[in-house]
């Protein structure tokens, strides 16, 4: 009986993995991770393959106040927004870098793969032109991103402070009720 249970769970895992692979085409995939039931904290995962940001699985307490909910939603939304931006950015960088390398190698008349079979690369000095061009091309994008990021970061921290104060106040209040009655 135990073996059939194990087989079932294994089959479920295989199904999940195959679904994950299907979803892999979009870089906004949500991890299938589920934290253990008895945990009352958020969980943070490994860096995302595309954005290098670590996703957070937010814990929803039973007696979540409106303020806490607002904070959680803000954090989730910021996380998704960040994920989208950096995944786009990194993929664009990778793509443009490969195009640049290919075009330069063709201009030099070299093959994309050297005689040894390894991928031919340009040295750092040749790549410097690409880095400069990429940076200047994305400058405005970064200016807007920075402004939004700073606003969101401050907002999240401000709300975290409010939530912390609210929790402290709630802890003190029942004691006050007890002493007054």
């Amino acid at each position, binding site marked *: 009986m135990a*073996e059939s249970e*194990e087989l079932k*769970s*294994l089959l479920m*895992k*295989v199904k999940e*993995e195959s679904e994950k692979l299907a979803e892999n085409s979009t870089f906004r995939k949500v*991890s299938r*991770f589920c*934290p253990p039931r008895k*945990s009352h*904290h*958020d*969980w*943070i*995962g*490994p*860096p*995302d*393959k*595309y*954005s*290098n*940001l*670590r996703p*957070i*699985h937010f814990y929803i307490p039973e007696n979540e106040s409106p303020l806490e909910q607002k904070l959680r939603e803000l954090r989730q939304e910021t996380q998704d927004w*960040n994920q989208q931006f*950096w995944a786009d*950015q*990194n*993929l664009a*960088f*990778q793509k443009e870098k490969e195009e640049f390398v290919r075009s330069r190698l063709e201009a030099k008349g070299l093959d994309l793969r050297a005689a040894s079979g390894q991928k031919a690369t340009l040295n*750092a*000095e040749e*790549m*410097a032109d*690409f*880095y*400069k061009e*990429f*940076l*200047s091309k*994305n*400058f405005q*994008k*970064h*200016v807007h*991103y*920075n402004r939004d*990021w*700073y606003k969101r*970061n401050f907002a*999240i*921290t401000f709300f*975290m*402070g409010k939530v*912390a104060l609210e929790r402290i106040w709630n802890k003190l209040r029942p004691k006050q009720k007890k002493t007054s009655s």
Partner: protein
Amino acid sequence: MAASPHTLSSRLLTGWGGACIWYLEGRAMRESPRRFLHLLRNVNQQWVTFQHINFLRRMYVTQLNRSLKQQIKPKPEPAESPFLAKTSLDEAKAEICEMRPLVPSSLSLSRKPSEKALIELEPTSVTEGSIALGKETKEEKQWKEMKLRADDLPGILARLSKIKLTALVVSTTSAGFALAPAPFDWSCFLLTFVGTGLASCAANSINQFFEVPFDSNMNRTKNRPLVRGQISPLLAVSFATCCAVPGVALLTWGVNPLTGALGLFNIFLYTCCYTPLKRVSIANTWVGAVVGAIPVMGWTAATGSLDAGACLLGGILYSWQFPHFNALSWGLREDYSRGGYCMMSVTHPALCRRVALRHCLALLAMCAAAPALDVTTWTFPVIALPINLYISYLGFRFYRDADRKSSRKLFFCSLWHLPLLLLLMLTCKRRAGEEGAGAQQS
């Protein structure tokens, strides 16, 4: 009947496993005294680095913890950027994970005296091993609970406040204090030391608070506490405030208002000017150099004023920042470009190298000016000439060659150049009561 080949193979495995462990332990035991002697011999020839001490700690831990798991634990994260990692690497690692459950179970089996227990436990360990691949995927294992533990906190706060950089800032401040032409007052020195340290911790924490997504994307900074979620942003800001307020207060009321003002100004300059400016303009490097020069507040702490000598020391600290930072940034061009940082090494590479060389030569000139301003005796520029010439030479090589090798050499040279220069300045300090020119000394 089916049980017997299993028991034979398990016994063989335990035998092999046991022999393996014994061999590894013996090797660790034999090697460590040799390495320790080697370290002792070298301690006179070179500075004992942090890595050496870390290495000794690791050897001690592996000896203490005699399980095989400790010794063959694979690296948790790949070194290259994640979006370039190949899938074959993951498959290989999955195989290693599959292999591992078998060996520790055989370890536990080898410790059981009775054979009956061996037979009973053996089938479960085999099934465990085969399902190990299906259970908990590697990715799931890397999820961590965001729960702050009290014993982790000191380490986390040390990394948040960039403790090594803070130590460097505090030592340059102390050098400034010692160099100042005033009698050495221990209480004032300690107040300056603590105040500057706290101010630096605060500034570094706020810097990390602002830069979380950018730090995640750069190899150099991706293991910082806020990036890894070891601490919440609220706690980081609270910590920064708890350092800044007492730090500046200590400097203002414990030392003098000028030093307090410089401390506060430096925190503001670093967090509100340098950090945002890094993403907008290359002017950030010059602002950052001013931030590095403000530890001249050690001098002002002792004397209470910004005189010529203080300005000279500030100038030396300011000029040093350029070869140091420009050489470092040369190797990080890809990360800066991808992350959107405006650095000279990316946008104006020729300027980057020119500025580095220019400031190496400026260091030479300023060291020569030190005796003229009564900071040091005339022996100082003479003794400092070799190291100043060396760093200028490396600056010139960097300017001419413009490659990774020359930039690394210049960077590593700058790391020992400044402490040594300050030490030489201290040894050649013009004592109170001495006359000006060396010619007057008989």
